[in-house]
C-alpha cells in the first residue's frame, strides 16, 4: 500500500517537537540559599572568603530543604521543618514545604525579596536579611514579636501584594512565622560575617576564626537575643479615655497635624494625599542607591586614571579594580531590584498597611516605621496628643470640609 503523501512534514514536526521538549527538560537542582551578593561584592570578598561564609552558614543554618537551628537562636526546629523543603505531605499527612508554596515566589528561597515575581510588585516584597521589619508593636529599632509576624500573616498588608493567610490552619501560620525569623536571623548573620572580614586584623590572612566563640557567642547570639527580647520592647500604650470628646479630639489632632511640632504635612502634604515630598527611599532601596552611586563614582575615577605611568603593581591593582567594578555591575543587575522612592502614605484612602486599628496608628506615630522615613514622635509628642492625631487621621477619609474642600479635583485613586 503506497502512501499518497510524503513523510517529510511529519519529520519536521517531530524534530521541532523534540527540540521544544528538550529545551524544557533537565533535572532541577535542589534549592539552595543564594549568598548576599551585593554585600559580598561591596566588602570586596575574594572567592575563598565567599566560600568560607557559605560553608559557615551551611553549618549553622543548613539548607532550604534541611534547616538547622542552633539552640542559641531560640527557634523551634520542628516548626522549621514544617515550613521548609519542597511541597509534600509527611508521614502523618501534614502539609510540608509551606514557605515554598506560599512565600518563596515573592520573598525568594533565601528570604531576600528577590523571588521570581518580586520585580513586578510595587512595593517590593520584604527582604528579611537586614532584620528590619516595618509594622510591629515594638519600639523602632527592636525586632517584631512573634504575635506581630502572625498578625501580618493573618491580615496581609492592605495596599500591597502581601495577601492574607487567615484561612490557613493556625499551626501552618505559626510554622511560617518561625521560618521567617529563621531566614532573618540567617540573613543578619551572613551580613555580620561578611562585614567581619573588614574588621579582621592583618594577621588573620583574610579568614574568619571558625571557633564557637566567634561564630556563636560574638556573631549569632547578639542577633538572636534581639529577637528573643522583642516581647520586652513592646510600646506601652496608655488607654484612650473612654469618655473622650471625639469632635474636640479630632480638632486638636488637626491642629497638631498641621503644626510644626509633628510636621505631618511636610511629608503627607497639606492635602493629606501624601504629596508633600516624593524623593526619599526606604532603607532597602537606599542601600542600593548609595552603592550604585559609590560604584559609579569609583568607575568614573578608574576610567579617567591613565595607566601609562603606572608601575606593574599599580597596573595590576587597577585591573583588579576594574574587574571588581564589572562584577558589581553584574551583581546590581541580577541581585538587586531597581530602586524606587517611597511616597508618604495617602491618608485619604483609609488604607493603612500596618493595620487600621487606632492601636496600630498609635504604634506607627509613636515609633515611626523602622526602615522607612517615617520618624518617631516618641519624646516629642505626648501620648494624649498622639491619640488626638490618631483620631484626626482616622477621620481624614471621611473629611468633607477639610483643607481640601469640595472643589478639590477627584483623582482616580480617590475612588477607593
Amino acid at each position: 500500500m503506497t502512501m499518497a503523501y510524503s513523510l517529510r512534514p511529519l519529520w519536521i514536526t517531530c524534530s521541532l517537537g523534540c527540540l521544544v521538549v528538550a529545551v524544557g527538560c533537565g533535572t532541577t537542582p535542589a534549592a539552595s540559599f543564594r549568598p548576599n551578593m551585593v554585600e559580598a561584592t561591596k566588602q570586596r570578598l575574594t572567592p575563598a572568603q565567599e566560600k568560607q561564609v557559605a560553608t559557615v552558614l551551611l553549618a549553622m543554618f543548613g539548607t532550604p530543604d534541611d534547616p538547622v537551628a542552633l539552640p542559641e537562636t531560640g527557634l523551634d526546629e520542628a516548626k522549621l521543618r514544617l515550613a521548609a523543603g519542597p511541597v509534600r505531605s509527611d508521614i502523618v499527612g501534614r502539609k510540608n514545604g509551606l514557605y515554598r508554596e506560599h512565600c518563596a515566589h515573592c520573598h525568594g528561597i533565601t528570604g531576600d525579596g528577590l523571588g521570581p515575581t518580586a520585580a513586578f510588585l510595587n512595593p517590593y516584597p520584604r527582604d528579611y536579611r537586614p532584620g528590619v521589619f516595618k509594622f510591629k508593636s515594638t519600639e523602632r529599632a527592636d525586632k517584631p514579636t512573634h504575635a506581630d509576624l502572625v498578625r501580618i500573616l493573618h491580615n496581609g498588608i492592605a495596599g500591597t501584594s502581601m495577601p492574607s493567610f487567615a484561612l490557613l490552619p493556625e499551626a501552618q501560620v505559626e510554622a511560617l512565622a518561625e521560618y521567617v525569623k529563621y531566614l532573618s536571623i540567617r540573613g543578619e548573620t551572613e551580613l555580620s560575617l561578611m562585614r567581619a572580614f573588614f574588621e579582621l586584623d592583618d594577621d588573620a590572612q583574610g579568614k574568619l576564626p571558625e571557633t564557637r566563640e566567634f561564630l556563636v557567642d560574638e556573631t549569632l547570639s547578639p542577633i538572636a537575643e534581639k529577637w528573643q527580647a522583642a516581647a520586652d520592647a513592646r510600646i506601652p500604650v496608655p488607654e484612650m479615655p473612654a469618655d473622650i470628646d471625639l469632635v474636640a479630639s479630632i480638632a486638636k489632632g488637626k491642629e497638631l497635624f498641621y503644626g510644626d511640632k509633628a510636621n505631618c504635612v511636610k511629608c503627607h502634604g497639606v492635602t493629606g494625599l501624601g504629596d508633600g515630598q516624593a524623593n526619599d527611599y526606604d532603607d532597602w532601596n537606599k542601600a542600593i542607591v548609595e552603592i550604585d552611586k559609590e560604584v559609579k563614582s569609583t568607575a568614573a575615577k578608574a576610567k579617567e586614571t591613565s595607566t601609562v605611568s603606572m608601575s606593574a603593581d599599580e597596573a595590576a591593582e587597577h585591573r583588579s579594580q576594574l574587574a571588581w567594578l564589572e562584577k558589581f555591575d553584574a551583581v546590581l543587575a541580577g541581585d538587586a531590584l531597581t530602586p524606587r522612592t517611597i511616597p508618604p502614605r495617602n491618608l485619604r484612602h483609609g488604607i493603612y498597611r500596618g493595620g487600621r486599628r487606632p492601636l496600630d496608628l498609635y504604634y506607627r506615630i509613636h515609633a515611626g516605621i523602622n526602615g522607612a522615613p517615617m520618624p518617631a514622635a516618641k519624646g516629642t509628642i505626648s501620648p494624649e496628643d498622639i491619640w488626638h492625631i490618631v483620631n484626626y487621621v482616622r477621620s481624614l477619609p471621611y473629611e468633607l470640609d477639610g483643607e481640601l474642600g469640595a472643589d478639590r479635583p477627584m483623582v482616580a485613586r480617590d475612588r477607593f
Partner: protein
Amino acid sequence: MQACSTSSCSPIQAFTACLVALITVASGCSADRVTPPTADAEGAKQLRVTLASAPGAAGAGEAAASTGTGWGTLKGRFVFAGTPGAPKPLVADKDTEVCSKAGMKLLDRSLLVDPSSKGLANVVVFARKASRVKNAVPEIPVVFDQKQCEFLSPVFAARVGQPVDVRNSDPIGHNTNIAGTAFNQLIPAGQGTIYKPESETGMPTMVTCNIHPWMKAYAVFRKDGYVAVTAADGSFSIADLPAGETIELQVWHERSTGPNGALVLDKPDLKWTPKGRFQIKLESDETKDLGTLEVPASAIGT
C-alpha cells in the same frame, strides 16, 4: 505550507524551520546571574560538630594587653593632591523660604579642600583598639546642630555614653535619623533632644533628615573616644593615647574609593594597609607629628 515533495524542501521552508528552532531554544535561555562559590559540605559538617560542642574554655582570647604607662598625643595633617573641582549644589526643593533663603544655595560638602593649604577636611581617624583609656566618658554634650536646612557639622564624633545634644536652630521642624541606631526623631523648631549612643559605629554612619532628604552628615561613636575629625585645614590631633603599645588607627573619608570608605595612602613607613589602617607606637608624654599626609587624587572618587 505545502508538504514537501520527495526532493528537498525549498530554501524558505528550511529557513523558517531553522528560525523556529532557534527561537524555541533562545526562549529557554536568559541572562545568568553571577555564580557564587558553593559551600564546602564536608567542612560544614565538621564545623557543625565544633559548634555543637559545649562552650569550652575560651579560645586563645585577646593578646595580653601590652604593658605601658603614660599617654601620648598623635598629630597630623591631611592634604589633597588632586584638584577638588567646584562643589555641586544640592536640590533643596522644600521649605524654600528657609532652605533657599534669599537665593542662597546649599552645596555638597563631601569633598572640602582648603584652597590655600590644600588641607582635606572631614577625614576621620580613630583607634581600632586601645588597651586602656585615660579619661572617663565626658558629661559635656557634643553639640550637633542644624540651621538653614543643613547640618552644621558634616562629620562629628562622640563617645559611647556621651550625650549628644541634637539641636534644631531653624524656624521649621526637622527629624534627625542616625542610621544604624534607634534614633530617628522629630526635632521641633528651636528645640533639641539629648541622645546617648549605646554602641560603637565601626566606620562612620550616615545622619539624614527625612523631611529634607538632601541633608546629610556622618557620625562616628567610639567606646574609647580616641577619634578625631580633621579641621578645615586638614589637621587632626588625638590626645591621651596609651603609650607603649602598638595602636592601629583606621582612616575614613566620605568620598574615598577604598573599601567601606577607608582612605588608602601609600605610606609603607606607617604600615598603611589597603584597608586604610596605619600603626604607631607612642612613648610616654610623646607628641608624634605625622606631618603632611598626602592623599592622592586616585583615592577620592568623583
